[in-house]
C-alpha cells in the first residue's frame, strides 16, 4: 500500500494568555491509501488540532510552527492558499466533532451540499440548467447514500429540521460528495446515541470500502477502533505515545498509557472485573519540562524516565514512546 498522508515532526502552538501551549508537539504519522487509522487519547491530547493542522485550518492564536505534511507527494505547508483550497473538500475532507454546530443554520441542506460540488466537481456540465440538474441529482444521491429518506424533499430543509444523527449523516454526505482520497472523521459518534453511533460508523466503513478512501477516525472509544481501524495511534499531551496495528496494540499494548486506557474501558470479556481508571490528570501543556509526559501518572515510572523520551521501535510496524517498553510484554 502506498502512503497517502505522511506527517513528520509537526508542531502546532497556541499563544494563550497563560503562555505558549504546545498543543501538537512533534507528531509524526502515516496513512496509507484506503487504510483506516484510529486516533485515540484523552480530551485535550491534541487529536483535533493535529488534523486541523493537516487541513491548514488552525485559527489564530494557533500556528503550525514546524514539520512537513506530505499528501499525495506534495508538502501541504508549501502550497498557496488557493492550492490548499482546491485540495480541501476535494481530496481531503473532514467532518467536525459536533454535527449540531457544523452546519450553517441559515442555509438549506441542499445549498450546503451543492456548494461543495460547485467548488470542486469538474465533471459537472457547463450549461446552467444542465449543471443545476446534475448538482441536484448528485445531492440527492449523496443524501440517499448516507441513508436519509426522501432526499429530494429534504434538500430544501434547514439543519434544525433534522435530528442529531441525521445532521451527522448530512455532514458525512457533504464530506464525501467529491469522493475524497482521505476522510478525517473527528469523533463522528460522540454526540449520538448508541444505536445511531453504530449506524454512522457502519456507514463510514461501508463507503470507505466502496470508494477505496482512507479514513482517519478520531475517537475516545477503543471499542470503535477495534472494530473499524487497521492501525491505531495513541496521543497523550500533544505527542504520539504509541502506534501500531490495532489488534496488536489492543492485544498487547507497549505503552503504560495505552494499557491504562484499555484497563479503564468496560469489556465484555472481562465482565465482573473492576475497572481501573488512570489516576491523575493530563499535565498542563504550558511550560512542560522535557521529560516523559506520562511520568506523573505512570505506574512504571522511574527516576531514569525524567528525560526526553523519543519514539522507539517496538516490533514490526509498532512504535512506543516509553523507556521501559521491553519490560511490558
Amino acid at each position: 500500500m502506498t502512503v497517502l498522508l505522511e506527517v513528520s515532526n509537526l508542531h502546532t502552538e497556541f499563544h494563550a494568555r497563560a503562555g505558549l501551549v504546545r498543543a501538537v508537539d512533534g507528531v509524526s504519522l502515516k496513512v496509507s491509501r484506503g487504510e483506516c487509522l484510529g486516533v485515540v487519547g484523552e480530551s485535550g491530547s491534541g487529536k483535533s488540532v493535529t488534523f486541523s493542522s493537516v487541513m491548514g485550518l488552525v485559527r489564530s492564536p494557533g500556528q503550525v510552527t514546524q514539520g512537513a505534511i506530505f499528501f499525495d507527494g506534495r508538502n501541504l505547508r508549501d502550497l498557496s492558499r488557493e492550492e490548499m483550497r482546491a485540495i480541501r473538500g476535494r481530496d481531503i475532507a473532514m467532518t467536525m466533532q459536533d454535527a449540531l454546530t457544523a452546519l450553517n443554520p441559515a442555509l438549506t441542506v441542499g445549498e450546503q451540499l451543492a456548494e461543495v460540488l460547485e467548488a470542486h466537481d469538474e465533471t459537472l456540465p457547463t450549461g446552467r440548467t444542465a449543471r443545476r440538474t446534475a448538482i441536484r441529482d448528485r445531492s440527492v444521491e449523496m443524501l440517499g447514500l448516507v441513508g436519509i429518506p426522501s432526499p429530494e424533499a429534504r434538500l430544501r430543509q434547514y439543519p434544525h429540521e433534522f435530528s442529531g444523527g441525521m445532521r451527522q449523516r448530512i455532514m458525512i454526505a457533504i464530506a464525501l460528495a467529491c469522493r475524497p482520497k482521505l476522510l478525517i472523521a473527528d469523533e463522528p459518534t460522540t454526540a449520538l446515541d448508541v444505536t445511531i453511533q453504530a449506524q454512522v460508523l457502519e456507514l463510514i466503513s461501508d463507503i470507505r470500502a466502496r470508494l477505496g478512501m482512507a479514513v482517519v477516525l478520531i475517537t475516545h472509544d477503543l471499542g470503535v477502533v477495534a472494530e473499524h481501524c487497521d492501525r491505531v495511534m495513541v496521543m497523550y499531551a500533544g505527542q504520539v505515545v504509541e502506534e501500531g496495528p490495532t489488534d496488536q496494540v489492543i492485544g498487547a499494548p507497549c505503552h503504560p498509557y495505552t494499557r491504562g486506557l484499555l484497563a479503564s474501558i468496560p469489556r465484555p470479556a472481562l465482565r465482573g472485573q473492576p475497572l481501573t481508571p488512570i489516576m491523575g490528570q493530563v499535565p498542563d501543556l504550558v511550560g512542560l519540562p522535557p521529560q516523559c509526559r506520562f511520568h506523573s501518572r505512570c505506574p512504571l515510572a522511574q527516576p531514569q524516565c525524567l528525560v526526553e523520551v523519543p519514539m522507539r521501535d517496538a516490533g514490526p510496524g509498532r512504535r512506543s514512546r516509553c523507556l521501559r517498553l521491553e519490560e511490558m510484554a
Partner: protein
Amino acid sequence: MSLGKLLERLIQLIPVLLGVSLIVFVMLALTPGDPVQIMVGEQAITPEQEAELRRDLGLDRPMVERFFLFIANAVQFDFGQSFYHGRPVADVIAERLPATIELSLVALIVALATAIPLGVLAAIRKNSIFDRLATVGSLLGVSLPGFWFGILLIMLFAVHLQILPVSGRIGYASEVPTVTGFLLIDTLLAGDFAAFGEALRYLILPAITLGLPMTAILMRVTRASMLEVMRQDYITFAEAKGLSHRRVIFRHALKNALIPTVSVAAIETGSLLGGNMIVETVFGWPGLGRLVVESIFLRNYPLVQAAVLLYAITYVLLNFVADILYTVLNPRVKL
C-alpha cells in the same frame, strides 16, 4: 410565516397603540399653558368668545371623554384644526411627510450601505489599523451632536468648497409635478434627470448627518456579530469544504451576521425620527420634523399631539417590523 400568524401579531399591537395614545394625550393635557390663551395671544376677546372657542376645541368636556373623542377622531385621521395654518392638522402633516420619509429612507440607505461593508472589513481585519480607525470613528459617530456635525458639513461643503447647497430641498429652477411627494421619484417620473441630480445634491448632507449615528451603531453591531459568527464551527466546516474565501465570508458568515444588524436597523430607524427634528432644522428641510419644532414654539397643540402620536406609532410598528425581519431571516425561529 403564515398570514394568520402575522395578523395575530398585528392585532396584539392594538393595546400597545392605545396605551401610547393615552400617554401622548395625558402628556399634552398636563403640559403647562392654556391653549386658548396661546391661540388668542394679545388679542382682546370677550369671555363669551373664549367660552365658545373652548367649546369648539372640546376643552370644556371631562378628560376621559376628551380622550375617547381623541381616539375616535384619530382612527379617522381627524386630529382637529391646526391653529396656525387654519387647516386640518392631517392635511398639514400629510403635506410635510413625504420630505421627511424621503430624507429618512436615504439616510437609512446611506447608513446600511456604509456600515455593513465597514463592519465586515473591520471584523475580517480585526485589530488592524483600519479596525482601530473604524472603532474610533464609530465612537465619534454616536457621540457627535447632530446639529454640530451638520453645521460642520455645511461649512465645509457648502460654504467653503461650495459644491453642495446650504439648505432647503431643491433649487427653485426645477419645477416638477408632484406625484408621490418624493422628489427623487417625481423627478424621475417627469424624466427630468437634471432635477433628479439637483434633488440628490440637496439630500446628501442632511442624509449623511441624519444617518451618521445609525451608521456608527450598525457598523459596531455588524463587526461584533461578524466576529462572533466567524468563530462558529460552521465557518470552519465551510472552510474545510474548500469554498472560496469570498463565499465563506459573504454567504456563510454574513448571512448569519446580518440578522442582528437588520433588527437593530429597523429599531434604530425609529430614532431617525428624533434626529429628523434637529437635522431638518439645521438644513432647512421642509419636513415633519421642522414642522413639529415650529409647532412646539407656537404651542400648536393639535399638531404636536398628532405628530407625537405618529412618531410613537411608527416606532411601535418599526419594532414589529424588526421582529418580523428577525424571524424571516432566521430559519430557526418560528413565530
